[in-house]
């Protein structure tokens, strides 16, 4: 028995030693995979400057929300905002972090990247399985002068639940009543047609391999991996090429000022130059944190990132938040969060 006690004591001492070792100024965040590259990059630079480690892991937005509620992490990150009721219930606040775009990606013989033009109706029709052929009149009328093949369309969607799918289906729900009624929006939906690829890499690999297919991926992914992407006609009726300017235009023209807790989804933004499928990721934190010291580090990190991390974000094909929005976020921190 005494021996047992001695062992238990030794274990206790060891555990205490380890825990002291483990808690050396590390803060933890979890959630959306969309922001993983840029948060990791920011974190590395922030660590060089301050010595504080911000450890962010992409376990998915749903996972991020669940973990912040369970109190296992210092901040969560989600591609889908929480509504006021849920924020209030758990004492949470949220703010956007960085902007990116989602593009329709295609593989059609003889049609180069950036040549195909689609609008919301046509895109919804294709993904509903109503437009089944590339030479359908609905596509042809948007593309006068482009020779589209008489070939069956293969639709590729994300098989994993993702913020990319959420923003894509949110956009289709906004522009097509038919889509809204039959499918709706979500990180995962019941797709009326097509095959599912896991992750950006799954969708882009299928689109590359299967002739006459169409899918959707993050803009950065399409750009870096030479996947053909389409132009879109936006809410103002203008045909837009995806790119940083078009994403920033969407963020700038979205009505943030009237969105409580930044609960606003940027798809189908009204601006003349706005890319219609633009997305952001929200950072979610406790207004009265359990661990105030860690929370302070998180605020320092995002303050530094939003004010000084723009160049690094652009390097990774993300678009930094417009300055006015950053000001608004900092005001939100002052009024809503206890530092």
């Amino acid at each position, binding site marked *: 028995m005494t021996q047992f006690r001695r062992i238990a004591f030794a274990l206790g001492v060891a555990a205490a030693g380890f825990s002291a070792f483990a808690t050396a100024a590390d803060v933890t965040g979890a959630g959306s995979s969309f922001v993983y590259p840029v948060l*990791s990059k920011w974190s590395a630079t922030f660590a060089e400057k301050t010595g504080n480690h911000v450890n962010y892991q*992409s376990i998915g937005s749903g996972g991020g929300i669940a973990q912040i509620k369970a109190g296992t992490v210092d901040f969560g990150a989600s591609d889908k905002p929480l509504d006021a009721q849920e924020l209030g219930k758990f004492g949470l606040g949220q703010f956007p972090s960085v902007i990116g775009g989602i593009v329709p990606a295609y593989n059609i013989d003889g049609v180069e990247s950036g040549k195909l033009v689609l609008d919301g109706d046509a895109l919804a029709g294709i993904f509903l399985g109503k437009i089944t052929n590339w030479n359908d009149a609905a596509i042809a009328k948007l593309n006068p002068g482009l020779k589209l093949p008489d070939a069956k369309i293969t639709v590729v969607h994300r098989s994993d639940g993702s913020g990319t799918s959420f923003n894509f289906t949110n956009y289709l729900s906004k522009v097509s009543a038919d889509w809204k009624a039959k499918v709706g929006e979500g990180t995962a939906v019941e797709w009326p047609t097509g095959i599912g690829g896991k992750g950006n890499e799954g969708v882009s690999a299928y689109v590359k391999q299967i002739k006459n297919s169409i899918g959707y991926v993050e803009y950065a992914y399409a750009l870096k991996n030479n996947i053909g992407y389409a132009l879109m006609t936006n809410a103002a009726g203008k045909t837009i090429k995806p790119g940083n300017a078009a994403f920033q235009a969407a963020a700038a023209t979205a009505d943030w000022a009237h969105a409580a807790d930044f609960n606003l989804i940027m798809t189908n933004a009204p601006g003349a130059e706005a890319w219609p499928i633009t997305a952001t990721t929200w950072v979610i934190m406790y207004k009265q944190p359990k661990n105030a010291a860690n929370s302070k580090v998180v605020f320092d990190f995002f303050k530094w990132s939003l004010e000084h991390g723009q160049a690094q974000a652009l390097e990774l094909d993300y678009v930094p938040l417009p300055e006015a929005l950053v000001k608004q976020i900092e005001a939100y921190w002052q009024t809503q969060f206890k530092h």
Partner: protein
Amino acid sequence: MSANVYRRRYAKNVVAQALASAAALLALMFLAWILWVTVSRGVQAIGVSLFTKITAYADQGGLANAIIGSLIIDAMAIALCAPVGVLAGAYLAEYARGTRMGETIRFLNDILLSAPSIVLGLFVYVIVVLPMTAATNGSITFSALAGSIALALIGLPVIVRTTDEMLQLVPSTLREAALSLGIPQWKLTVQVLMRAAGSGILTGVLLALARLAGETAPLLFTAFGNNYTALSPLAKMASLPAAIYQYTNDPNPAMHAIAWAGALLITLFVLALSLIARAVFARQKTSHE
């Protein structure tokens, strides 16, 4: 007539041996194919920076923290599941043969084999991570230890299954001989039977290691991951499979190359271990004989 029978038997034998060799060749071909794809896609990332840089995207990321993390987590996982698995297998083979209890455990073990790894990770999240978070008021949450417990649950049934089978195949004459010398049962089991079945048991442990070393899903909610280097078993820790998972979804093709290189590392790591283990085992065996 009898010559005919002989010829038929001979032909059957030749065909069977040819098909068997073809089967082995086919498996080797797939191995070469997969390894070739892994090497050719990862080769541009293989270099010093893979081992010196961490996953936090300092310049172009590396895998240093993930390699260290995987070594620690996998070692702890094997340390947890190998003894328990071997002893449980020995119980099934030596003490519970033909008993209802033995049959039940054997059956449940087979079910555990196919439990989706993410479910086991979730189970460990509930029984280790959440209580730990509550007990330490949030200062310890996810931990490498929790990750290795989840991985141990994945390796455990493989070891139990193989140990059980291998011990059962030790000829009964060995037991009879030992018992007639008055050797106690525990000594018989540990020093005679386990030694006789050692190569098979080792195979089981290596298969378990091979299986758990590549798992990602159970680590997300247990070891969590870390962009920085951590050494404490109670810290959040990076791992190679999780790093591969992160890098493959990255828009940058250079990151995909790192992912392939990481996969190659895991494969080589398990290969090296099984070669070493086999060599050690072979030497031990010859020195005892």
